[in-house]
Every structure is written in C-alpha cells, then in structure tokens.
C-alpha cells in the first residue's frame, strides 16, 4: 500500500475508533452514574458497599476510555490527520460500527454489563456463553472493539518512520494534564506521545492491554472487570432476586421532540432545564477538547487554560454532578415513566473552531450562558436533596466562565 493509501485507510479506521471510544465511555458513564447511593433507595448498606466498588471500577474504565480516545487522537495527529471528537447520537445498531453490540445509553443492568463484556471481549477468545441469551448481541462484523485495533495495528506495522508526519509538539501527553512533574499516570490515565512507528505500536498495545488484556493475563483488563462485576451482580441476584441496584432511569434521553426510535424525550420542565445545561456543558467541553488536541498557535498559557477548563473542572463539576442529578429527576409528568439521565447529545456542528481568537470568544460565550442557565435553575423547585448542588452549579459555572475570560483575555461577560 502506498503512503497515500495507508494514510487514508488508517485515518478512516482511527476516526471510527475515536467515535467508538467516545460512544463507549458515554455508555459506561451512563450506567455507572445510574447506581443508587443511599439505603433509602431500597438497597442495603452491604449492597451499597459492593455497588460503590462497581461504580468506581466502571468510572475508572470510563477514564481509560477517555485516555484511549486521547491516544487515538494522538495517532491521528501523528499521521497528519485531525483528532476527532464527533460521534452520532445513540442508539446505534450493532451493524453501525460492527463491533458486536448496540450503542445505547442504558442504566446499569445485566443486559448492559453483557454488552460491555462483549465490547471489551478479546479478539481471539470465544464469545462467552453467558452472552448468548442476550438478544442485543449479534455476531455481525467484528467480534469486538479489539478486532478493530488489531486491524489498525497491522496497518501500522506496514508503515516506516517517514510515514509519521505530525510534530511531537502536537501530541497531548500525561505530563500536560497534571502539574506534578514526573507522574506517569493521572487518575489511571496515561497518555503517551506518538511520533513514529514504534511509539504508535506501543500506544495501540496499551489500548489493547487495558481493554482486553493479553492472552493468559486478563486480570485488571476492562473485559475482566466487567465480567467480574457481572458475576458479582448475578450472585447478588441469586441471593436476592428483587435486587435492583440502578435508579429507574430511561434509555437514551433526549431533548429533541422529533422522537427518534429508541430515544426517550425528557418532557418535565425542570428536568429539561437541567438536561439542557448538561448538553451545553458537554458540547462546549468537546469544543475545548477539540481545540486542545488540534492546538496550533496556542501559547503554553492558553493550552493550560483549555486543559484546566475542559478536564478538571468540566468533567468533575459539570458533567458528573449534573448527570447524577438528572437520575433523581422525573423524565416526564408520568410517574411511571422513570427518571431522566444525561442525554450526551453530540453537537452537529464541527467541533474544531479554526480561528483561535474567535474560538476563545465562542467558548467564553458558551460558559457565560451555562452560568446564566444555572443561575436560572436556582429558583426552580428541585427536590431538597438537589438544591445544594444547584447552588454549587451556579457558583462554579460563574467562576469557570470568569476564569476563562480572564485567562484568555476575552472581554465582556457577566
């Protein structure tokens, strides 16, 4: 294959891989954050302790999927392509990516765990017997995500060092994510630089090892962790058949009233208001991540501002708290319809904003709007348990917007 062909094929496959990692991590977050937190929700203290372990494990995997998305973006940059943070809305049929399972935002359940096991399944291993009864699992296309990475790996093996074009300065690495020098991982995330064939292969192997493990050494891999959770959940169900660890949240929530198949429109006004803040936060976070990974003429200070806005605190003070709050709010006025969840609506617009000065203004404007929306939430009649968090949202979003404007020298604002 010529360099031209190889570059085109690899860029295509890596772009698909980016969408898959992005879609998978949203699914994992959705399931993890659906888990109950208090005995008042109908679970025992002992069960809660076990559920905390499940949630922590799935959130760790989700962080590593963010890392995988970052690695894929580094690979794309290194081959002269563009990092990719877009993805289609869910649900998606198994045939869409051909990695063995539907992409769908659903609460923690046996079916969800089976899908996750399937997605992380080793490329060369037998599909677990426990997965067979699940109607959502179809043997179509690739058996799992690992197969896609093995295809990518094979293509990378056929490159030479002259193939790799991207400058090392375009790479996003662990050291940039944490001010503590010399740390190899930050909260279980380790982002390596890709500059040549050797580092590209090592990066792909990292994704494969974390996802499926290696032959005979599956322990700690995403595949093994999900399988273990599935076994623990099954055992708990055997002890207590009525055990329900997840809040009754709907599948694939949306603010869109056009009613896509498999989506659930959120209609309760207070819920919609919060879900809108979530989607706007998610959207502007993706814009910041796109600019961060595609950085061109940013100063080091500007890059730091993007990083210190898009990771902590966007993920910790916006995405996760709002997602958790939504799982406690009704999806609609029908009490039997269940609770809401975070829509994770992917923006349609291209996420990379090419002109730097305009990008800062657009991001600042969005952050201001989020702060204004949060301020408008305060008088809303949310349950008492949520009100302190609504107040925190108001304070923290106002500060985020002000910090960003000050650091990027963007005038105006509230």
């Amino acid at each position, binding site marked *: 294959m010529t360099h031209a062909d190889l570059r085109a094929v690899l860029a295509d496959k890596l772009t698909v891989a980016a969408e898959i990692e992005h879609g998978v991590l949203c699914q994992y977050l959705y399931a993890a954050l659906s888990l109950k*937190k208090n005995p008042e929700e109908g679970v*025992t*203290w*002992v069960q*809660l*302790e076990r559920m*905390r372990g499940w*949630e*922590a494990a799935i*959130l*760790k995997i989700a*962080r590593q999927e963010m890392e995988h998305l970052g690695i894929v973006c580094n690979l794309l940059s290194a081959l002269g392509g563009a990092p990719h943070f877009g993805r289609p809305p869910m649900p998606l049929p198994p045939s869409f990516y051909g990695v063995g399972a539907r992409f769908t935002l659903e609460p923690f359940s046996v079916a969800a765990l089976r899908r996750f096991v399937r997605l992380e399944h080793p490329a060369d291993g037998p599909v677990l017997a426990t997965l067979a009864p699940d109607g959502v699992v179809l043997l179509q296309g690739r058996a799992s995500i690992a197969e896609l990475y093995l295809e990518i790996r094979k293509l990378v093996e056929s490159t030479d060092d002259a193939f790799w074009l991207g400058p090392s300065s375009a790479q996003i690495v662990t050291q940039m994510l944490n*001010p503590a020098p010399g740390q190899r991982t930050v*909260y279980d995330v380790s982002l390596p630089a890709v500059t040549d064939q050797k580092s590209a292969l090592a990066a792909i192997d990292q994704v494969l090892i974390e996802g499926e493990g290696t032959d005979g050494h599956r322990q700690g891999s995403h595949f093994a962790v999900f399988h273990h959770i599935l076994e623990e959940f099954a055992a708990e169900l055997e002890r207590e058949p009525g055990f329900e660890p997840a809040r009754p949240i709907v599948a694939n929530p949306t603010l869109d009233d056009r009613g896509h198949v498999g989506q659930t429109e959120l209609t309760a006004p207070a819920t919609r208001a919060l879900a809108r803040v979530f989607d706007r936060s998610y959207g502007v976070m993706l814009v910041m991540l796109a600019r961060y990974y595609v950085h061109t003429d940013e100063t080091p200070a500007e890059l730091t501002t993007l990083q*210190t806005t898009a990771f*902590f*605190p966007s*993920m*910790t*003070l916006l995405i*996760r*708290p709002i997602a958790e709050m939504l799982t406690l709010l009704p999806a609609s006025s029908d009490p039997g319809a269940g609770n809401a969840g975070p829509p994770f609506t992917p923006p349609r617009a291209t996420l990379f904003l090419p002109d730097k000065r305009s990008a800062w203004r657009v991001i600042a404007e969005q952050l201001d709007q989020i702060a204004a929306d949060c301020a408008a939430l305060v008088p809303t009649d949310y349950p008492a348990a949520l009100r*302190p*968090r609504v107040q*925190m949202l108001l*304070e*923290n979003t*106002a*500060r*985020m917007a002000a*910090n960003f404007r000050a650091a990027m020298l963007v005038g105006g604002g509230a």
Partner: protein
Amino acid sequence: MKLIVRFSGAVLYRLPTDPDPMDETRGVSGYTFALAGEPDMDRTIRMHDFGGFVLRSGSPANMGVFVTRAYRTDAPETPVEALVGAKVELLGEPKLENRNWLLTLPGKEPIVPFELEITSPSGLRLRRDDYFDPAQPDLPVWKATPAQLARRGASGIALDPLTIGEATGMWDPMQAIAERLALLVPEREEAEKRGDEIAVAALTRRIAELEFALVNPTDRRVMARQAIERFAFGMNGKATIDDPHGALGGTLDTTQPWPIAYWMGGWDADTLTCFFDGALIVPYA
C-alpha cells in the same frame, strides 16, 4: 507587647478526594469514603463537634484542638495560664476550598470561612474572623480574586516527616498502616462473629484501602500521612474579646490584623483525621 497563643490537636475532616466531584457525599473514585452505616461526608474541618459522626477505630486518642501554651512577650515572658487548655474552634462549617482545582491548585486552598474562636472554661474568649475583602465581609469564596485566595491559602503541599513526627509521634507511615491493619483485621473477625454485616462491610473497605497502601508506598494514601500544608496571614475581620477576670493583663488591639500561622497535615485517610498546629499572635493596644 504581644499575646502568643500556641494551639494544636487532631481534627476530623471527612472530604471526598479527586477525581470525585468536590461535593461527592459518599466517595467513589477517590480514596476517601463515607462507609456503610456512616453519614454523608460534609467536607467540614471539625475540631470538637463531630456532627454526630462516630469516630472510627484507630482515631487519635485525644481529638480536638486546644491551647497548649499562652504568654505575653514581656521581658521576661509572662504566662497567661487562663488560656492554657482553652478550646480552639473554627466556626461556620469551615472547608478547604479548591473545588476540583477551579479556585486554586491543590495545596494552595484557603479555609472558608475563617472564624477563629478560643474559649476557656473561665469565660475568657477571643474571636476573630478573616475576610477576603474587609470592604466586603460577605464576599463569597467563588467571587474572591486569585490574590485574595492566595493571601489566606496554603503555600503548597510539602513532605515534612520531621514536623509530623514531632507533633504526632508518627515517624513511619508504613508502620502506622501495618499497625492499623493489625487493629482492624481482628475487629472485622469480631464483627463477623456477632453477625454485624454493616460493620463487616465497612471494615472490609478500610482493610482493602490499607492493604493497597501497604504495597503502594508512593500512593496518596501513604504520602499524605507525612505531608503538610502551611498557612500564614493576618486576620483582618471583626474581633471580639471577653476577658471577665482580666486574665490577659491588658487590652488587646482589635484594630490591627492578628497574624496567625498554622499547618494542617499528617492526613490519615483511614480515620479521616489530621493534625492542626499553629500560633496566634495578638498585639496589645
């Protein structure tokens, strides 16, 4: 002439840890947790009132911050015995505020609010607040400027085994972890024998965290035991002094800032306690 008040003691501090959100109440992704049967974490530095929380086994024997020494800087120094043993308290549910690095980097955060009160059984009382901006005493932390936060904030996280060792007697964190495990394992066996499933679940989590720390000596769970954060600033807010028996030997100046210097550290993530040690310097009028 100045009044020097030295104080120290162990405090309860139940906070979630990164990468959990700053207001996570149970603890999931960090290394601190509200365990089975325990109330939610509240992020509040508690010097005496533990908010109904039952201290975990292995907590320091003498919890609470008290005045250890007080004297006037006459020549020679004059002890102010009435203050020794007085209760030192931070009022208003004080919290270390960096909000997942939004306000400050870790190790640079201020305690908010900062309302210091020292009360002795004899009725002697010193109280002083600190404001981010004396012209706006109610300025909330999320509106404070970086300079205002830095003035009250810590100067960074430092590994300081000497300070911790001398203050607490804990010189070897790995030994401390091993000793804690030796305490908790039989405690869990006892809980199993009496069929206390909630206690077993809580102790199992504590033991798992300690076992992790034991084989990961550079982990936060270990390093935090020998780390401190230092603070030093002049308290600039409203001052109140009640000295019914004239024990202070003069009138304190309530118009000038009162310098305070203290450190927090020796963080034990298992018992959610740490050490608090410092000095207040009050000028006489």
